[in-house]
């Protein structure tokens, strides 16, 4: 859909808003559960980046696929992964999408076309281009959205995967979530050259840069680019500038960022930004508060359910390795 339409269509904005609120509420609940120790392992939240996941995935069909990152809750939720299964997985409980074997860094819901978060930076890129190649071979017109961070553009698979997708004109939308940081390092200090879009163009992948904290802008750009991708024009890259409002992990305070800097980031909060726009367009504060409350209730329930769920059967630890030559129960 066109910018104008995206910006003008407040039903669409309300969909984006609800989705972003749900992502935020999911991750706030997860952070709380991680704080109490109920969620084990490392937890990377995308608080501040919700507009990218929402704006892209609202333009995808259920049979489209995505590959994600270590910071993948928003992508999964936006693509339609079941919330209960996600929350249970984070808790390592029975009923988790991955049976408690994956956790936050490996969350996946193949039924929803979510091919997996990834513990390896840029790890999803080759998988995404191959998925697109496979879909074409099967005669499907589904497309693939491949999410990665700005730290990933300095790993080899970025070059290989984009060149590959351009070469075979594969239906892939590469989405770079540029939050300016990689773990504890500013990516401006690790990334040479004119920028991410220019890198993509040099590999034959037309690219567009948007303010990733404006949901409507992401939505419009994604719609445009995905139309081209689905139309057979080959791959496209969406470079979305966004903000990591949290630390690298939920236990990282990112203390190296000045209070001024953090305040400046907070001022760009994509949800507050969208809510302001909605209010300007005449939405009622009450209505938005209801969405907020519903989202929090949904995730509170999900958390309660996960907390109440049993641990996976220990015997299940032996399953899902391989069909032939699977390890037997220790003697």
């Amino acid at each position: 859909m066109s910018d104008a339409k995206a910006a003008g269509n407040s039903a669409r904005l309300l969909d984006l808003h609800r989705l972003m609120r749900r992502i935020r509420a999911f991750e706030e609940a997860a952070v709380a559960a991680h704080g109490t120790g109920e969620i084990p392992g490392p937890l990377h939240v995308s608080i501040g980046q919700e507009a990218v996941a929402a704006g892209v995935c609202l333009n995808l069909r259920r049979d489209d696929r995505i590959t994600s990152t270590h910071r993948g809750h928003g992508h999964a939720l936006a693509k339609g992964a079941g919330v209960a299964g996600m929350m249970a997985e984070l808790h390592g409980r029975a009923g988790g999408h991955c049976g408690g074997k994956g956790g936050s860094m490996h969350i996946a819901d193949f039924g929803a076309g979510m091919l997996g978060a990834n513990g390896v930076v840029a790890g999803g890129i080759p998988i995404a281009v191959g998925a697109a190649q496979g879909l074409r071979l099967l005669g499907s017109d589904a497309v693939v959205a491949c999410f990665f961070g700005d730290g990933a553009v300095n790993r080899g698979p970025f070059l290989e995967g984009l060149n590959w997708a351009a070469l075979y004109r594969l239906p892939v939308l590469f989405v770079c979530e540029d939050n300016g940081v990689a773990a504890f390092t500013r990516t401006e200090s690790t990334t040479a050259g004119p920028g991410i879009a220019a890198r993509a163009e040099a590999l034959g992948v037309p690219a567009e840069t948007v303010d990733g904290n404006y949901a409507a802008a992401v939505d419009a750009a994604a719609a445009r680019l995905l139309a081209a991708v689905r139309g057979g024009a080959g791959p496209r890259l969406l470079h979305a500038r966004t903000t990591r409002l949290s630390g690298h992990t939920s236990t990282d305070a990112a203390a190296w960022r000045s209070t001024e800097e953090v305040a400046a980031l907070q001022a760009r909060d994509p949800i507050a930004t969208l809510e302001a726009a909605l209010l300007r367009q005449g939405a009622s504060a009450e209505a938005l508060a209801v969405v907020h409350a519903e989202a929090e209730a949904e995730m509170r329930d999900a958390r309660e359910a996960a907390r109440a769920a049993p641990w996976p059967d220990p015997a299940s630890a032996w399953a899902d390795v391989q069909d032939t030559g699977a390890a037997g129960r220790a003697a």
Partner: protein
Amino acid sequence: MPEVTLVEATRLAVAQEMRRDPRVWVLGEDVARGGLFGQYRGFPEEFGEARAVSTPISESTIMGAGLGAALVGTRPVIEMRIFDFTLCAMDELANQIAKIRYMTGGQARPALVVRMPHGMWRSSAAQHSQSLEAWFVHLPGVVAVAPATPADAAGLLVAAIRSDDPVLVFEAKDLWQSVGPVPERIEPLPFGVARRVREGGDLTLVCWSALVPAADRAAAALAERGIGVDLLDLRSLWPWDEEAVCASVSRTGRLLVAQEAVTAAGFGAEVAARVVERLGPGNVRAVRRLGFPRVPVPFAPPLEAELRVTPERIVQTAEAMVRG
């Protein structure tokens, strides 16, 4: 049965499966020219460029794209050209392919095959001669095979393509030109079943891949000297035929493993350790491993000859084990 070379046998096997199942396809460098060894000769013509994909020199993506394509339901045959280049794609192979089924609780089924021509061949030196199959026995989530005859190579490839597991196929470059019978219709060969090459009662000799012909020559020479060798070609390294090896050693009392790979922490160590664990040291009279010393493969033929396992070395060692 027609007699064909091992490389031709693999070409026939993959072509048969591509005719049977449209989801099967091949990707790798120079596939459009039939592959480095001619193992895909005629594929672009018969199957088209969409199923015989000639790729850039991008090993990480050849491997990773194969995985992605498997995740949506195709069954790729991933060609690595020479095993050693697999080291450019280890994240994709070891962190992604081998683990994704488990990490996703069984949602992912990476039904793919990785072909890796390996080992010493025509003085190719250290970066084109490695035999690191032991690494993948140690890696959960994959099946690993290393055939030594045209029939086994064809049968295991068909089984690999039909399997829902990621199957790693170690193909001995040095055996590409060896000739043997291959049926018109190639049936899948079950994984994990060793092939008894010779029967004998004095010593169990275990080998696989390029060392099988050398071991067979050694066994023949030993037979002339009155030493009966029970020669087993494992064919599959994971799963491997523990039953056959243990049954044999419990008869012969002696285990000799001969491998082209480096001995230290090689697959022969697993075979030796497992047999002793299962039978108990008290029921075994002698255990020895032969392999390459912990040295990279040198270029000059006399240097290679100084280090590699030969029939003579196998004979010497076996004799010492039986007589000594």
